[in-house]
């Protein structure tokens, strides 16, 4: 199923005083999908998100939503879950959510109903009359999540949405995100957690030192990745790998021998060499994991 492109980030650049935070970044996100924004700390993810949300104005380039440059009115429909969570500590959860929903343009009646529904979905109903300062961190996070989605935003920006959640709640939040996707929401997700990005995202953009180093459909990126990843049964002797310059053994998983095979070498040749070197009962060419791609794309001195 093809999806419509909704969010277009076109060649945006932002320089703070002397530091270039984002340099000529472009990407597009489609409705009903999650777009993953990856990168080490300080790479420019938050600045990019703030430019998408029109909080910071780019020095050059544009951000368009459904073909129109994002302005205050369009931005007001967006939902945002910031990395640094923020709520009024003493204001009742229900009042707070009502306030934010109305601020985003909902009528009081719609807001009340949506809050009830979302609270039920996230097991938060009993906490609606409490102040955030009385809630556990996980529940505060859920309130923050509701605050971001209460007005049914067409674009939902999630900055590290799973930090602070236990595995059960991560699933609860993921399910909510899936429901939003089913309703054609475009989700822009920034995270360090590769496995979750891999699970949710259709497209990704990896940013390093203010620039996009990988961008596009996750499947395409994996398919076109020059390095091959081979998983085989363990062999007593790995000297046969010396015939493949650049090949390296990755930290093994589940007793397998995982090998990264650089471009220019054929997996078939490796298979032959492996069989020659001993009994081989498992040989598999695997797609690179997002983690492999990320580590290859991001310069080591910049990984945090």
């Amino acid at each position: 199923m093809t999806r419509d492109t909704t969010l277009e980030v076109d060649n945006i650049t932002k320089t703070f005083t002397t530091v270039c935070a984002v340099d000529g970044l472009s990407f597009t996100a489609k409705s009903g999908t999650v777009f993953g924004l990856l990168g080490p700390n300080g790479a420019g993810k938050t600045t990019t998100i703030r430019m998408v949300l029109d909080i910071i104005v780019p020095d050059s380039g544009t951000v368009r939503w459904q073909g129109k440059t994002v302005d205050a009115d369009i931005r007001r429909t967006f939902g945002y879950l910031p990395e640094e969570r923020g709520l009024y500590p003493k204001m009742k959860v229900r009042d707070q959510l009502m306030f934010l929903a109305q601020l985003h343009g909902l009528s009081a009646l719609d807001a009340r109903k949506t809050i009830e529904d979302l609270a039920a979905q996230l097991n938060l109903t009993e906490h609606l009359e409490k102040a955030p300062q009385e809630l556990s961190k996980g529940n505060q996070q859920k309130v923050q999540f509701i605050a971001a989605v209460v007005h049914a935003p067409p674009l939902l920006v999630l900055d590290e949405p799973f930090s602070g959640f236990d595995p059960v709640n991560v699933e609860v939040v993921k399910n909510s995100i899936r429901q939003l996707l089913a309703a054609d929401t475009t989700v822009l997700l920034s995270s360090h957690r590769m496995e979750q990005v891999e699970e949710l995202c259709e497209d990704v953009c990896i940013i390093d030192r203010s620039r996009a180093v990988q961008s596009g459909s996750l499947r395409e990126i994996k398919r076109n990745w020059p390095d091959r990843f081979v998983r085989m049964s363990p062999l007593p002797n790995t000297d046969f790998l010396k015939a493949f310059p650049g090949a390296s053994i990755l930290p093994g998983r589940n007793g397998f021998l995982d090998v990264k095979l650089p471009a220019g070498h054929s997996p078939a040749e490796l298979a032959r060499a492996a069989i020659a070197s001993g009994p081989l009962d498992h040989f598999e060419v695997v797609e690179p994991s997002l983690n492999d791609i990320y580590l290859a794309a991001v310069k080591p001195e910049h990984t945090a």
Partner: protein
Amino acid sequence: MRTVWLLIKREFIERVRQRSFVVATVLGVLSIIALALIPSMIGTFAKSQSTKFIIATPDVATATAIEESLRKSGSLVEVDLKRRPMNGALPPDMKAKLMKGKYDAALIAYRDAQHHLAFAYYPKSANALQSADEVEASLQRAVLIADVSASQRDAVSQALKFPFDVHSLNARYKNAEDEIFSQGIVYFLLIILYIAVIAYGMQVATGVIEEKANRIMEVMIGAARPTQLLAGKIFGISAVALLQLTINAVAAAVAAIIAGVLYGASPNGKQAIAMASQMQQQQQVGKLIMSQGLPHVPWVTLAFLIVFFFLGFFSYSAIYAGIGSLLSKPEEVQQYAMVFMAPVIAAYVLAIFALQFPDLTIVVWGSMIPLVSPLLMFTRISTTDVPAWQIAVSIGGSLVAIWGLTLLAGKLYRVGVLMYGKPPRPVEIWRALRAHT
């Protein structure tokens, strides 16, 4: 517009719901009621504070004259009739009584070698020491009466009771008491204006910083424009201020009526007020404010109080919101308190000056310069006749300044609300401002 309204509503409701608001308002009302009871307190105070003299005189006639003169100024006089001093020395037993604290001062009258009346004054209490000049002045009358022959005494005494009517040509005040009263009211209202501008202005600053510190700003900035957030904050807090000031004003009016009933009618109250009226100017003013009450303040003055409160509050809160958005932690407000308060304090000091000299050039000009004008113009309007054009310039200037300051604050706000960490240096602020324009 709906956005700003929502922001104002939240600001107002959440602030009014706070326990601190309820406590502060109740305490405010209680202290106003306590203030209303001050006349009786001043009365008691006045009684215990009137100077007690012990006097010794060369003859009975002098004693009577002195006693009469001193009593006129509200002092208590006891005459030691047994003693006929020949010089100004203080007899040991009188000194002992003084030291025991029975009297505040001893006054020894005697006749010198030329048979002229002479006095030696032995004040013990600070009050008595301060009133040496008054005592000397009262004695002039006593000397006149005591030193004329018995046949002339009545005539002199009668002549000294000459009438002295003050027919004030000053348009504002009918008499000195009226002037003192009026100045007292202005002084009182000036303090309210000063405290309100600082207190509510600081609330704007801390409110902005709190929203930054608990990061709610990250969400808010996505839902509303910085100028809307700023307007919501300032108008929300001004609504709170208006509510609190109204509650206090109503409390003051009620307290004044109660005080009027309690003290105005009863003989005790009248005596207390009469006693109090002989005290220092400030106590007198306090008594007058409380006995005559706020209803006595011209409505125009109260209306101007509200107008200039808002002009002052809006000017300063725009600045405070701008500075506040550059700070990251509520504690930092303390460090920068002087920066916040300096301009208001300067305006206040000038206004106190203006209370005495409302027509000085510097005061006239100052009353038309934004930031200092609200306090100064209010003072001038309340104490002298101000040409209408000057009032218009003052209010118009303030409005223009508020507009400009709010624009500037909105920019600072936009730059500042997402800045964390150390407060930025002026150069950085300037760069950031330029980057956003």
